[in-house]
């Protein structure tokens, strides 16, 4: 593992996904976003479903990856709708998709249903990488463990801890999941990562990637 504290902004960028996800983000905003973010080699650019194609077009020859989202950020959609969104993302050029889960099932201990949903989403995804969002901020440690097990059983190997929008990831959550599952689950952190110190802390604890809508302070670049 690199000594993250010593990495320069451009060396940290490949560990960071930068996002432009909001209700009122326009095509013009996306164009500016793609332009501004070309300064660093970010892990991916995250956009809402209806901007995948535009982002791909604007990226031109760049091989920068596109992340998108499903049932985001509240997780209240049915499996059929999530699967349709996932299929859309797959067909329009996204690299991976962050899917909010059915927290009603997690909170009522229905991990059989959680597993079944993940399996259906992974099936619909084809080559698209599925990243499920357990929303660690609202789960007990036992629920985090059982959720991760259900995700693995269902064929998902990557999680994004929280959806952001006020839900915050604690470094203890990264350490806990890492301790239980080691390299079997790749952990992406989202929610409350604001500074370069946060970034270094999360990566040093075992996170593989961070998500942020404020990339410059996260990289330590002014």
């Amino acid at each position, binding site marked *: 593992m690199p000594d993250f504290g010593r990495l320069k902004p451009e060396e940290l960028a490949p560990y960071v996904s930068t996002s432009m996800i909001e*209700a009122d983000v326009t095509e013009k905003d996306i164009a500016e976003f793609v332009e501004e973010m070309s300064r660093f080699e970010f892990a991916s650019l995250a956009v*809402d479903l209806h901007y995948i194609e535009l982002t791909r077009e604007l990226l031109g020859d760049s091989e920068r990856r596109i992340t998108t989202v499903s049932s985001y950020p509240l997780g209240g959609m049915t499996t059929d709708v999530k699967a349709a969104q996932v299929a859309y993302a797959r067909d329009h050029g996204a690299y991976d998709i962050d899917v909010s889960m059915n927290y009603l099932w997690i909170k009522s201990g229905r991990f059989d249903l959680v597993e079944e949903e993940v399996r259906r989403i992974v099936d619909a995804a084809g080559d698209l990488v599925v990243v499920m969002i357990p929303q660690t901020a609202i789960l007990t440690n036992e629920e985090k463990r059982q959720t991760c097990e259900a995700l693995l059983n269902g064929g998902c190997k990557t999680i994004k801890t929280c959806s952001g929008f006020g839900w915050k990831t604690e470094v203890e959550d990264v350490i806990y999941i890492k301790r239980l599952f080691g390299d079997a689950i790749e952990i992406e952190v989202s929610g409350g990562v604001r500074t370069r110190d946060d970034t270094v802390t999360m990566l040093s604890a075992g996170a593989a990637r961070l998500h942020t809508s404020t990339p410059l302070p996260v990289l330590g670049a002014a």
Partner: protein
Amino acid sequence: MSSGDLEGVKMTMQAGDFASTIDHTYLKIHRSDAEVKRLCFEAAKHHFASVAVFPVAVPLAASMLKGTDVEVCVALGFHLGAYPPELKAFETEDAIKRGATEVDLVMNVAAAKAGQWDLLKEEFRLFRDAAGDAIAKIILETCLLTDDEKRKACEIAVEARLDYVKTSTGYKDGATVPDVKLMYDTVSPDLKVKASGGIRTLDDALAMIDAGASRLGTSAGVALIEAFNERFG
């Protein structure tokens, strides 16, 4: 606003009429069946217009509310509304198939911001078709729009023959009296207006009704009806 400004409302409205404006709403992350059940019991007891939940809770709400006069309202596109019209149409059909009788959908706010009115027309048209006989409410997220954008979106909703224009998701700033008036003036008498977000007190609720709202989306329904009965009962 003081209650004195609401004398007109007081004179014309009965408790039952007031209750029938309320969409009894639970749009936090759904965590337990018990919360959905409580909402349904309360809505049936007070004869609210509907119970409003996310799609994952629609089958439970529909089975609980069977045989009551309470509609099953579902919140779609929450809360960003940032995906293509076909996916929203699919989501609408899916929710109705599971038992929803009213559908509240977040519109493509960005399209309105960018003046992509044809895109909005297409979205509203597909939403109307997918909703069929269900009550179709389109959510503008007014706090993100200029008055001209609100008006234009309302006109497109009228053209598409939707049933309601609705102010807010509740995840950003909520309904305001001027917005409800603007929407009512633009869509009445063809469509109705639903005010939602931030309606906590009886004065809030009555002000919205006075401004032209026929429905109120709120999680404070029980407290509101109790306050109504206390003041006017």
